[in-house]
Every structure is written in structure tokens, then in C-alpha cells.
């Protein structure tokens, strides 16, 4: 811990630990998890800090059990989260779908690694499609946030709990092995304990009306009505909570769209390109669901071209193409298998797609 000029507390921490600390400070009092690389520091930190803070930590027998323990804790009124890495997310999908159907707030952290299958333990953005398009069986969406720094890890987990609680829907942090293991300065000072409403939870029937928390949605008309209600929540979410960052876009002829750690690498490449007078900028989606469609669409109409850069083989491209809607050229550059993008390779990709101005 060090103290800077305005005497605020700044910590030097790993992303996986910062996310755990921030979650506890925001009021998370249930953590259930299973060891998997590269997110082990998170569950280890929780095993120590959660009991200290009066919360519940349990190492579950599997990811499947973890997510259902989260279901039980959330149903009974706890503020619950779990974390895992890509193969573990596959195992959690059953539970995530049930959490969404039962309208239970919770946060799931995915510290992504390369896939499919066991893939390997190196950083990747391999679960974009899984997180944003599916996240389990049925007609629903996860709220998905993509941190790019250790401070983001702390801030996004708080936002994830806030949105999960507001919309009574699972929220997912789509991190990766690199952000998880980055060690940077981080501050928690601004993090306040989030309010928790328990009126719908199953905590014992103290009123004449009892509570049932369930993911069964009834016969056709009831089930459709529930699904439409969920869809309305996603519309509201999209309208009020879509978030993105822009970087050097004002005069850009080429805009890179990149999320998470890839966006940070692209910033470096953009700075290098600007030294060569290349007019390039960045749109960094912070919420992957809801996706910042409108801002991309606006820049497409202005005549910008797009380069999507990801640490996968192009899972976000179709979302950018939908936003652009044929109004501009959309190219892709990505690395898979656990390779981290380098600023130099992004720069050489940028050079291919622009004319130079002097």
C-alpha cells in the first residue's frame, strides 16, 4: 500500500485480487468457487478475506455446484458471486440459465483462457460469443462487462452487482488471464456498500404471503409473458446502461473496435500510428451486452471504416457489422490460441487499411 499526494489509499494488486476485494467492499457476502487456472488467486483471496468480513466462502466440489450454491444464496437474499475460467463457464451455463429464469441477481467472473475444450491456460477472449449470445439455454441474456485494467476489475464488479440487483439478472465479468494477472495500482475508496432488497427472497414466511423462488415459467402463455418481461428489461438496460470508451475518434478515418485487454493494446498501437499521422481511433465497448451499437453506427454514417481487433478469431465482428449495417467497410484482425496481440502487429494492420495524411 502506498499513499499518493491527495492521501487516498492506493494498492498495488493483481486483477484477480482487486476484483475480490472490490466485491467484498460492495457488499458481496457469498462466494462459491472451484479452482481453475488462471483465476485461482481470486478464490484464494476470497477464502481469506470473505470470512474476515463476515461473509461466506466455500470451495465447491465443481463449477456446477458453485453456480447452484450461488442460486441458493441469492434466492435466500445473499449477495452472491462465483468465478471461473472458460471450461468452468461451460459447466456453469445450466445454473446461469436457471438464475436468469428465477430473476436472481448474481455475478459470474470469467477469467478467460484459450479454448475450445481444455485449450490452454493462456489469456484469450474466447468466450465473447458464449457470454453475449447465449450464456445458457433459453430466451435470455447476461449483462456482460469487459474490464481492461486492474482498476476496471474493481469498478466493473461493483457495476455488475449494481446492474444485477437492479435488473434481477446475472451479470458476467468477461476478464482474461492477462487482466487477471496484471499487477497495477488500484483504489477502492469510492466503493460503497450497495443496498440490498430482500422482499422477494425465500427467508422464511414471516408474512401471510409466502415466497417461492423458481425457474419454472409456467405454461405457454405464462412462459412467453415472462420472456417478454425479460426482453423489456434488456431494452431498458440497453437504453440506460450501455457503456463504451472512445479514444482519438474525432478526426478518425479508421476506428478500431476492441474490448478488454485488446483495447489497451490497441491504444498503444493508435499512439504509434498517430506519430505516422494516421488518423485512427478506438471504440472500446465496456458493456458487451448491451453492445454499444449506436455509437458505432454513428461513426459508420460519418464515413469511418472499422477494424475489429480481438484475441479470438472474430467473435465480435458480427456485432460491429450489424451496427455498421453495410455503411462502411469492416475488417478483422485477431490472434487465437492464447497469443496476446502486440501493438506492432496492430500497427501494421492499421497501415494496411488507411491512406496517410501528412
Amino acid at each position, binding site marked *: 500500500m502506498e499513499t499518493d499526494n491527495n492521501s487516498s489509499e492506493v494498492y498495488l494488486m493483481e486483477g484477480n485480487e482487486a476484483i475480490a476485494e472490490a466485491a467484498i467492499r460492495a457488499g458481496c457476502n*457469498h462466494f*462459491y468457487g472451484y479452482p481453475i487456472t488462471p483465476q485461482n488467486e481470486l478464490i484464494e483471496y476470497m477464502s481469506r478475506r470473505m470470512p474476515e468480513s463476515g461473509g*461466506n466462502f*466455500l470451495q*465447491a*466440489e*465443481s463449477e*456446477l*455446484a*458453485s453456480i*447452484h*450454491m*450461488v*442460486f*441458493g*444464496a*441469492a*434466492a*435466500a*437474499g*445473499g449477495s*452472491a458471486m462465483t468465478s471461473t475460467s472458460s471450461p468452468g463457464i461451460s459447466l456453469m451455463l*445450466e*445454473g446461469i440459465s*436457471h438464475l436468469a429464469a*428465477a430473476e436472481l441477481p448474481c455475478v459470474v467472473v470469467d477469467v478467460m483462457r484459450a479454448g475450445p475444450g481444455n485449450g490452454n491456460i493462456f489469456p484469450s477472449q474466447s468466450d465473447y460469443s458464449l457470454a453475449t449470445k447465449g450464456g445458457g439455454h433459453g430466451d435470455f441474456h447476461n449483462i456482460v462487462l469487459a474490464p481492461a485494467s486492474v482498476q476496471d476489475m474493481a469498478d466493473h464488479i461493483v457495476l455488475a452487482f449494481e446492474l444485477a440487483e437492479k435488473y434481477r439478472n446475472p451479470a458476467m465479468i468477461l476478464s482474461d488471464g492477462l487482466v487477471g494477472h496484471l499487477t497495477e495500482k488500484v483504489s477502492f475508496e469510492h466503493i460503497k456498500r450497495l443496498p440490498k432488497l430482500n422482499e422477494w427472497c*425465500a*427467508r*422464511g*414466511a*414471516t408474512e401471510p404471503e*409466502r*415466497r*417461492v*423462488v*423458481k*425457474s*419454472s415459467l409456467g405454461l405457454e402463455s405464462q412462459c412467453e409473458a415472462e420472456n417478454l418481461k425479460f426482453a423489456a428489461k434488456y431494452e431498458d438496460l440497453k437504453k440506460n446502461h450501455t457503456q463504451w470508451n472512445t479514444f482519438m475518434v474525432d478526426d478518425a478515418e479508421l476506428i478500431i473496435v476492441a474490448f478488454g485487454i485488446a483495447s489497451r493494446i490497441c491504444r498503444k498501437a493508435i499512439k504509434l500510428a498517430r506519430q505516422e499521422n494516421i488518423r485512427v481511433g478506438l471504440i472500446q465497448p465496456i458493456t458487451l451486452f448491451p453492445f454499444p451499437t449506436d455509437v458505432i453506427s454513428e461513426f459508420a454514417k460519418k464515413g469511418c471504416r472499422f477494424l475489429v481487433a480481438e484475441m479470438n478469431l472474430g467473435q465480435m465482428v458480427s456485432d460491429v457489422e450489424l451496427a455498421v449495417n453495410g455503411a462502411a467497410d469492416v475488417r478483422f484482425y485477431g490472434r487465437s490460441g492464447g497469443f496476446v496481440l502486440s501493438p506492432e502487429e496492430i500497427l501494421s494492420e492499421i497501415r494496411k487499411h488507411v491512406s496517410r495524411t501528412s
Partner: protein
Amino acid sequence: MDNKVLATSPKLFFGPPLHYCPGCSHGIVHRLLAEIVEELEIREKIVGVSSVGCSARLHMYLDFDFVKSSHGRAPAVATGVRRELPKHNIFTYQGDGDLLSIGLSEAMSVAIRGENILIIFINNAIFGMTGGQMAPTTLVGQKSTTTQNGRNPDTTGYPLRFPELIAPLPGVKYLTRCAVDSPKNVRKTKKSLTFALNLQHTNPGLSLVEILSICPTNLHLSPVKSLDWLHDDLVSYYPLGDIKVPEEEK
């Protein structure tokens, strides 16, 4: 002339008419739960975790708080509920397929952890809701829609006596096997369930009450003949009585 009420339905046993087939044992156990919660006055302090199968609608008939789990995960869900509500009574209600087939990992793990919950285990030796397929507790030679020539242990193994399997684990406090085939055994079942719920306050750990039951529809027998099958066949493989009781409670 004075009218005296000699018998009535427990107040907590409510909702629509039971959806169960004629002769099914679920209704009896549901009613027992309503009676127990009423008699112990714990409506404010109990949360049930129902599961998947014929008893998935348990929460519709009992007027207290429920969390409904997905298939087999009730022990994990109950673990989360328990950690949030350390002083409550928490139980799961699971059939043989739910507990011992898809949910065996979760069931075994709560036993290993000695999670302070009660598992109410309905063993009728068949998958009911899906139409009579083999369960882990289906008897050797018993016909089901997936063992049409009778269960063959050479290819499917032998039926599982789960309480006997977990009895040596120190976190497991109370194991008993009951049946709801006669008034006497129904009363015994009620006593066991009450005992197990009280134990959560005095001697925390896992309790499991296995209740031998009948599914006449999928046994393709009349309710009366199904009860004969329970006495003659089921009980001879799954003996009734206590399997484990804490020393201090004996």
C-alpha cells in the same frame, strides 16, 4: 347438537388439488410436512428446496417458503440457502433419479461436508415423471421402460443403498429408512422427519430420511398390489429402520 371437528387438513397444506396419480406416495409425505411445520410452529424459520421430477410442484401444496432447484442440484442450492440462513430449518425433497443419478455428486458432497440440511429422499425405485425409466434404486430384475427385460446388474450395476454408503462419514448425523405403506409406518416417518428437523438445532450435520414409496402408474400395478411389492420386494433390499443416530440422541 354440537359439531366436533375430529380431523382436518393441516392449514399449511393448501393450493390446487394434488396432481399425483392414484396411489402415489408423495401426497402422504407432503401432508406430513405440513403437519410438522404447523406443529413445530416453524413456518417463519423454514425454507424447502424442491427438485425436479413428479414432486417439482411440492411448493404449490405447502404454504411456506420454497426455492425450486434444477435437476439434481438441490443439495448445492440448499447449501447456499443454509449459508445465508444459518438458524433456519432447511430441507431438500428429492426422488431417486434426482438425488442418486444426476445429483449424486451434489448429494455425496453435502454428506462429506456435513452440511446442516435434511434430505427427504423419496425412493420408489423408478423415474416417475418421465414415464418409468430405470432409477439407480431400481431392483435387479425390475422391469422399466429402459430395462424392458428387467434390470440386468451385469450392464447396469446394482441398486444403490445410499444411506449405508454415507453412514461412515463423520458429518452425517442421522440416517433412517421409513415407508409410507401403513398408518404405523406413516406415523414413524413423521416422527423421523420431526426428529431430523429438530436435530438441525441441537446436533448440526447432514440428515437423510429415505422414504420407500410407490409409483403404481409406472409399476403397472394397482395401488394395493404396489404396496405388496413394497413389502415383499423393496423392503427386502432396502431394510427399514435407523442406519445412524447420534450417540447423544439415542
